[in-house]
């Protein structure tokens, strides 16, 4: 072995050991925040998103998709959707349950999933779930055929208005369950805090439907993008954009527009103020 090779080997080895030690130190020091109220850092979020998508794409490549257009399939799927999916994912005009709103990552709006993911991959995720996302695997609880029924219903889902969804609900599964009453915090209300509002955007799942500058993972287009919302004259096309109206809208959109696909998410007065404060920082309308 020549001397330069020895030097290079020692240098490389020492660098690897130092790098590994630094990484372990970082992990062990507790530097990374594992709470669900603080989102991943953007690079971590980015890598995890790609890892999940590639993992599913590669594994679902050989899945055979059965015919999904039989209306009875969609109806059977809807019953399962209503029993097992809507609690976390919501539906047109239906908010996810409170327990689902604190999940990190936020449960996807399935309208968006249906519009962007192929049938085979949706089936795969329902059957096998996804690690560290809260998405459970249904393989041991629901037959394969029933999973495909759910996929068949998801194919219909993006075509349903709020009224259509309610009609499915009353036709195929009886009346809808009452939502729990919103909890009013006893603490004194303060002026809206934009930074608190940014976190609340995650917790109320705003990010599953809206592109919101400065909020990690908020890049979907179910509703309109919120960049420049501070300068927009109307909220939802119907309310003059004042801070009071913004808070009203965030707290109960369906009270203002019963047809709105944006659901009532039981937003507290304080959280609505905080979110409005954040939204009013988005004044770059370009």
């Amino acid at each position, binding site marked *: 072995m020549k001397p330069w090779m020895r030097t290079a080997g020692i240098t490389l080895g020492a660098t690897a050991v130092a790098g590994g030690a630094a990484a372990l130190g970082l992990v062990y020091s507790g530097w990374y925040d594992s709470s669900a109220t603080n989102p991943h850092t953007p690079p971590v979020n980015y890598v995890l998103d*790609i890892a999940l998508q590639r993992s599913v794409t590669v594994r679902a490549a050989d899945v055979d998709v059965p015919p999904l257009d039989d209306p009875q399939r969609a109806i059977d799927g809807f019953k399962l959707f209503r029993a097992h999916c809507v609690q976390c994912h919501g539906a047109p005009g239906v908010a996810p349950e409170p327990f689902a709103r604190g999940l990190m990552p936020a449960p996807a709006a399935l309208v968006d999933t249906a519009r962007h993911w192929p049938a085979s991959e949706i089936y795969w995720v329902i059957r096998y779930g996804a690690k560290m996302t809260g998405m459970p695997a249904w393989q041991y609880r629901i037959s394969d055929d029933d999973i495909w029924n759910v996929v068949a219903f998801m194919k219909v889902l993006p075509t349903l208005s709020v009224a259509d969804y309610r009609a499915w609900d009353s036709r195929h599964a009886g009346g809808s369950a009452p939502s729990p009453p919103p909890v009013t915090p006893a603490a004194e209300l303060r002026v809206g805090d934009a930074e608190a509002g940014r976190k609340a955007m995650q917790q109320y799942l705003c990010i599953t439907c809206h592109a919101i500058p400065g909020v990690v993972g908020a890049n979907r*287009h179910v509703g309109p993008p919120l960049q420049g919302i501070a300068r927009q004259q109307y909220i939802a096309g119907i309310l003059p954009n004042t801070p009071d109206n913004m808070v009203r809208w965030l707290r109960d959109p369906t009270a203002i527009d019963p047809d709105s696909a944006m659901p009532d998410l039981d937003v507290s007065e304080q959280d609505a103020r905080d979110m409005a404060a954040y939204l009013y920082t988005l004044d770059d309308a370009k």
Partner: protein
Amino acid sequence: MPRSTLAGMPPGWPDPPVARALGRPRAGRWPGAAARRPAGLGAALAWSALLALAGCGDAPPPLAPPAQAGALPGADSVRGRQRIAEYGCVSCHQIPGIRGAGARVGPPLRHLASRAYLGGVLANTPANLVRWLRDPPAIAPHTAMPDVGLSEADARDIAAYLLTLR
């Protein structure tokens, strides 16, 4: 924040759906998305890594894909673009490709073709878009967007242009 920057991401990083599309090339998916982003080192690395990983088979389409431009037979997006200018849509909306004062009375129409709902209430299909353009108050009685008296043909042309905004 520059317009090409997605929430929280540094400019130059392709967003995951773009990277996903690049991993398995799909015709007509996210056209121009890559071109709008500065080609940073991160993007270059991510793309080459994904391309190296990508399989060769045909990518399956989305379960319920967003409407494609060209979904309205006979409609002409170039004519639609002229009609948008003539009807003064930009006095309320920002519309990519249309010169205007950057008004923000209603929402910006960037990504309209990707949007799941119109006016927050109507499923975004080509037929519904034409209906909405022709008479918004008939669908959402409280909407600030007026019926500007579009003919069916003009509404179809305008819809064809809007459906190019992915």
